[in-house]
């Protein structure tokens, strides 16, 4: 095998691939080992490329465009939902920390009104936290539903109208 390239290698590659060697090229190949190797490989590669089947069922361009737009919309929805999810998490965190602080400072600080409010809040707060967690899980579920559609995971029906 000869690592050195010949200046005619590119032409040999093209002509050998198309099986259109002319007399001049054949004469060159007789004296150039590098181009002989190139011609052999090029001929085989082209035969290999032509011997194998093409795609059985190529999707139309329109279906790719449709899917791309769908994914774009899903991404936009996910981005829009993110601040809401963050705010819900923050609200839950504030509610919990508020409860903890009130508990630590003692119900005596602020008088009986605060104590009564705290007692009422202490009953409602766990329910509020549960509601916030459920809302956050719902958002995550919706986001995952859209994400599954984006990655194409799911039942593969017929190619046409598989969206």
């Amino acid at each position, binding site marked *: 095998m000869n690592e050195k390239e010949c200046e005619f290698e590119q032409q040999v590659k093209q002509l050998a691939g198309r099986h259109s060697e002319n007399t001049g090229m054949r004469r060159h190949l007789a004296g150039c080992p590098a181009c002989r190797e190139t011609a*052999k490989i090029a001929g085989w590669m082209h035969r290999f490329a032509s011997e194998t089947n093409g*795609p059985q069922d190529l999707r139309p361009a329109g279906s*790719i465009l449709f899917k791309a737009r769908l*994914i774009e919309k899903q991404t936009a929805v996910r981005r829009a939902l993110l601040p809401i999810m963050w705010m819900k998490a923050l609200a839950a965190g504030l509610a919990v920390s508020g409860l903890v602080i009130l508990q630590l400072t003692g119900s005596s600080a602020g008088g009986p009104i605060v104590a009564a409010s705290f007692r009422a809040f202490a009953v409602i707060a766990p329910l509020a936290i549960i509601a916030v967690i459920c809302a956050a899980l719902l958002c995550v579920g919706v986001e995952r539903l859209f994400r599954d559609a984006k990655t194409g995971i799911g039942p593969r029906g017929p190619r046409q109208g598989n969206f």
Partner: protein
Amino acid sequence: MDDAIFEKIYNETARPLWAYIARVSGDGSAADDILQEAYLRFLRSPPRETSMLEARPYLYKIATNLIYDRFRRLKRQGVSDFEVSDLADAAVAKDEMSAEMMQVFARLKPQERSLLWLAYVEGYEHSEIAVILKLNKLSIRVLMFRARQRLAKLLDA
């Protein structure tokens, strides 16, 4: 990107790109998914110019990355490159002879398959192949030589 421009690019590149993906990955059924993903990524981040001159090698670059990602994923699962080739879709081969040719090609490493296909079937220059495969332009000549050497050895065997 304009729909008409994308359709033009798609109609001109889809079949040869599918052939490239199927031969290099050795799996015709995976080629359908990789092809679709390549065009989706192309639409998500199109090249600066949407001419065929820019779009075509860009598509091959995306497809090559997806093929190599697939090989890495399979390797993590414990499947070797050669085992992947043995799983090649029989429908890709027209007959016994082409199936034998596929087996020979499949014995090459994925990078060698890419190099040879891009150079000899698609007709890309070394500089273009370097961009597609994200390799140093100076190392393409050596890598191409080694790939040719390996293929020649397999053909002589």
